[in-house]
């Protein structure tokens, strides 16, 4: 059994693996299991010019953009459900031309991570035939040619090389993604980096396996023996993980199934303050730069609010939580 201990603190992990201009992907979906502690630490360390890959991470993407960390974005969906039908800082940045964005569909993004994880240059799908997602590029030919980490074209339509086999005349080829680093927040991990995601894994596993480096943050650090009692319930092998950080509430203010719900108070306040640049600067100062680390932010939120979002043992979320 490997015994390497990858346990570290978040400041060190972000400093070591997330660099100015790096290609980054983060796990989670809309308002669930985004690696928010890591997102806030990236903002605190003022790491900029990030090339970000996501399918539908709402809150994490919006905060990284709001924090001025993102230069380019490849994405399927920027929304946080009812809290922001379009992510607010994302929308402002795209309309102001301060970030470049290239659109895909969710399945295309999942397959792109899958292709990266498999070590093949592309995978086929029928999604997107006849649409502007195939026709319109967010990144120019020139930009692609100048960046060895980008494929020379966005999506390619190919005739089915097997003729009528599969009853599909054409397919869209989606290029693989190879992030420099993927950051996930998971429910359980051990010090080596074996991880167990509870509830929906979204595309987290493909995202991790497609990356060169992987940072895991976890709500609970558990003994390896315990995870190895049921290996079929684990999704990420320690062999692909570079850093493990134990951070209770590491997905806060997004949800972590069976641990805590999203915090509607925080998300609503964020939504309000994100609407103009002045109040957003105050938000950043008060909640992110003004707190030393994630425990600092949680202390500011207070035990009472954290208690309200505790997951109910039966349902895995905070039952009857006031979400208005």
């Amino acid at each position, binding site marked *: 059994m490997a015994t390497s201990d990858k346990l570290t603190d978040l400041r060190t992990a972000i400093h070591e693996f997330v660099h100015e201009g790096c290609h980054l992907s983060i796990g989670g979906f809309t308002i*669930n299991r985004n690696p928010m502690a890591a997102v806030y630490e990236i903002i605190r360390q003022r790491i900029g010019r990030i090339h970000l890959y996501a399918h*539908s991470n709402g809150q994490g993407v919006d905060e990284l953009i709001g924090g001025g960390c993102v230069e380019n974005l490849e994405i399927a969906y920027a929304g946080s459900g009812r809290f922001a039908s379009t992510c607010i800082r994302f929308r402002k940045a795209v*309309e102001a031309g301060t970030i470049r964005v290239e659109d895909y569909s969710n399945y295309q993004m999942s397959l792109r991570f899958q292709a990266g994880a498999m070590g093949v240059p592309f995978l086929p799908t*029928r*999604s997107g*035939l*006849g*649409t502007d997602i195939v026709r319109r590029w967010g990144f120019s030919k020139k930009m692609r040619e100048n960046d060895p980490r980008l494929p020379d074209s966005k999506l390619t339509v190919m005739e089915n090389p097997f003729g009528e086999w599969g009853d599909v005349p054409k397919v869209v080829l989606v290029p693989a993604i190879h992030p420099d680093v993927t950051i996930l927040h998971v429910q359980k991990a051990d010090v080596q980096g074996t991880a167990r995601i509870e509830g929906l894994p979204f595309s987290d596993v493909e995202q991790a396996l497609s990356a060169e480096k992987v940072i895991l943050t976890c709500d609970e650090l558990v003994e390896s023996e315990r995870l190895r009692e049921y290996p079929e319930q684990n999704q990420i092998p320690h062999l692909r993980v570079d850093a493990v950080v134990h951070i209770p509430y590491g997905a806060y203010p997004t949800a972590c199934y069976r641990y805590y719900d999203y915090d509607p108070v925080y998300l609503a306040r964020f939504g309000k303050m994100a609407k103009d640049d002045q109040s957003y600067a105050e938000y950043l100062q008060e909640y992110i730069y003004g707190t030393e680390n994630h425990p600092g932010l949680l202390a500011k939120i207070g035990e009472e609010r954290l208690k309200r979002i505790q997951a109910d043992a039966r349902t895995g*979320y905070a039952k009857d939580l006031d979400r208005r």
Partner: protein
Amino acid sequence: MTRYSEKEMMAVAAAREIRNGDVVFCGTGISMLAAMAAKHISAPDSVIFFETGAMDAQLEELPLAVGDSRVMYGAAVNRGLSDAFAFMQNPFSGRRVVGILGAAQIDPYGNLNSTAIGDYERPRVRFPGSGGACDVASFVSRTIIFMRHDLRGFVPRLDYLTSPGWLDGPGARERAGLSPGGPEMVVTDLAVMGFDKETKRMFLRGCYPGVTPEMVLERMGFDADVSRAKEIFPPSADELSILRERCDPQRLILG
């Protein structure tokens, strides 16, 4: 007569179209309400399915996003996005799926824009993007579309085609390589629109109580056949109590 809101009428109008045996793909917001209501109204044996990978979600409480933990509780299977989209791309299962979508713009053939208004590179208004909408619209045999009925939304030409409808008419989906089938109806705050079997163009299927075909046409940027329009029944007391008491007691979506 019981009073009801536009959103209640819209949710009920869509819920009535869902049948037993349908696998209902729903997005955020009113489409979840429609899918939840359908299980109590017309289709107790329909199955709710999310792109995030939750299959046959139980939805004791209304989720506020498709990634909400509320879609995970009590599901038959929780897998990931790859499995959810493969389920729809695979014709064995995909043909059973009815997708419920929304958009910022729709054209006469039911193609949708949920990406950007204005230039794509430097849009006047940026929307969230496809999410799973393009995938669903590419794969499944029926889609129901929620739209606000106004001139900004019902346009002759989209600024950006995010999700394929009938493209430019009969045979276009097959030529492009998409699944047969496509948009079935558009549920708006005024009316329900259908798509002609032959021409694939949008027509007026029915108006809500108090709405005339003229009012509908005034709020569209293209012409539509109104000769087949029938009145749509208002929500019944039963339908309303299902929506209000069982689906959205906090009025998170109903407002």
